């Protein structure tokens, strides 16, 4: 908890700096989270140049309106990733064909990355957070995890998942809720 609190305190300090138009603070937050943000955007939109645009848009929005972050509502890192995810999902919903065209290539990229994932995770930034989130996902029952991953990482809507899997819409929603309850408990209600 101590390490996480310190990291979050640092992030909030950087946001405060951005509110004062401190460009170094902006560079600091960008350097800390842009690599994860790009990875998330890439996973959803599956095209590198679009992922980069999304990350730039999100950080541009942060620079232009840092007051949009409300520290009463959650962490800086989660808010930033939420902005990126929202933009990425919005993009794929409007332009499904982007993903279809690039899907094969992207899968190859993801496969290559996963080959190195375990060794790299120990060496790069935010390893504790990554381990915790991965562990929380691994703890989920398979059907719940599948629905969550399709929804979050593949950018699929509940209806699209229902159609793709043949599951009733109600089942998709209930599995989402159960999975998210478990994740919430693991990630934010039982933080070490």
């Amino acid at each position, binding site marked *: 908890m101590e390490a996480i609190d310190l990291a979050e305190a640092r992030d909030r300090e950087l946001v405060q700096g951005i509110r004062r138009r401190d460009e170094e603070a902006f560079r600091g937050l960008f350097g800390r989270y842009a*690599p*994860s943000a790009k990875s998330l955007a890439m996973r959803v939109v599956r095209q590198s140049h679009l992922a980069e645009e999304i990350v730039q848009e999100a950080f541009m929005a942060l620079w232009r309106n840092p007051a949009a972050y409300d520290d009463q509502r*959650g962490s800086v890192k989660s808010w930033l*990733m939420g902005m990126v995810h929202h933009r990425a999902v919005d993009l794929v919903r409007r332009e499904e064909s982007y993903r279809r065209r690039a899907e094969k290539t992207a899968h190859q990229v993801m496969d290559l990355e996963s080959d190195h994932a375990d060794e790299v995770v120990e060496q790069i930034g935010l390893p504790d957070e990554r381990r915790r989130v991965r562990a929380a996902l691994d703890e989920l029952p398979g059907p719940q995890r599948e629905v969550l991953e399709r929804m979050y990482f593949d950018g699929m809507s509940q209806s699209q998942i229902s159609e793709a899997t043949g599951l009733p819409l109600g089942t998709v929603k209930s599995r*989402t809720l159960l999975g998210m309850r478990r994740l919430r408990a693991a990630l934010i209600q039982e933080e070490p």
Partner: protein
Amino acid sequence: MIRDHAEIEELLAVRSLGGLDGDDVERLERGLASHGDCEECRRLADEYDETAGRLGFALEEMPVDPGQADEILRRASHPASQELAPAAPLAPVDELRARRSRRARAWPALVAAAAVAVVLVISAVAIFGSLGSTGIQASTDQTVVSFSGDAGELAMAYQPGKPGALFVGSDFTDPGSDKVYEIWMLQGETAVSGGCVRPHDGSIVVFVDADLADADRMAVTVEPDSCPSQPTSAPILISDPLVA
């Protein structure tokens, strides 16, 4: 009507992951509205949003050029270079508004407005030197092309061989607080941004100071207000082929 937090919680969980769609979007809005100032609703929404945001960290980081931070700062400090200002003369705007007030939406009227407007704007621009001292004259060699698509009505007037084009449009919906319409010059497979614009009362009157020499067609997309350098969505309007 949602009567307790169970269903709201389910919908909030789906929403936090970006999965909410269909009737459930409105259902959640109605449910939250029916709860009024609901602390439990806010707590659930915040906690699920926080949880969802953390999921992104499960992925391996990807390398990002640190210079991008400076590029963002540069773009943010020069918004004028990313967004187009409305054309200087008020006459075309007034004319278009007058036309709208008369509910004259037919294409011939719009094209005529563009043709008249381009004379006024290009003349004004020439006078003020924005296009140099070549002294572009109002003449009959203007070309007006129309756009087709699923948005408002749009026409572009320009003089082949001369830089710049005037766009006159009507019946455009507000793209949203964080969205803009972006104008593109299409050169084969390449799209070059001509800048971004927001409609005012549904109207667009904007002069794009760009070289159209290599453009085959023009297009319009809806983009984030950062005015990206590459299109992130499919065109909503595409012009007829341009005359070289």
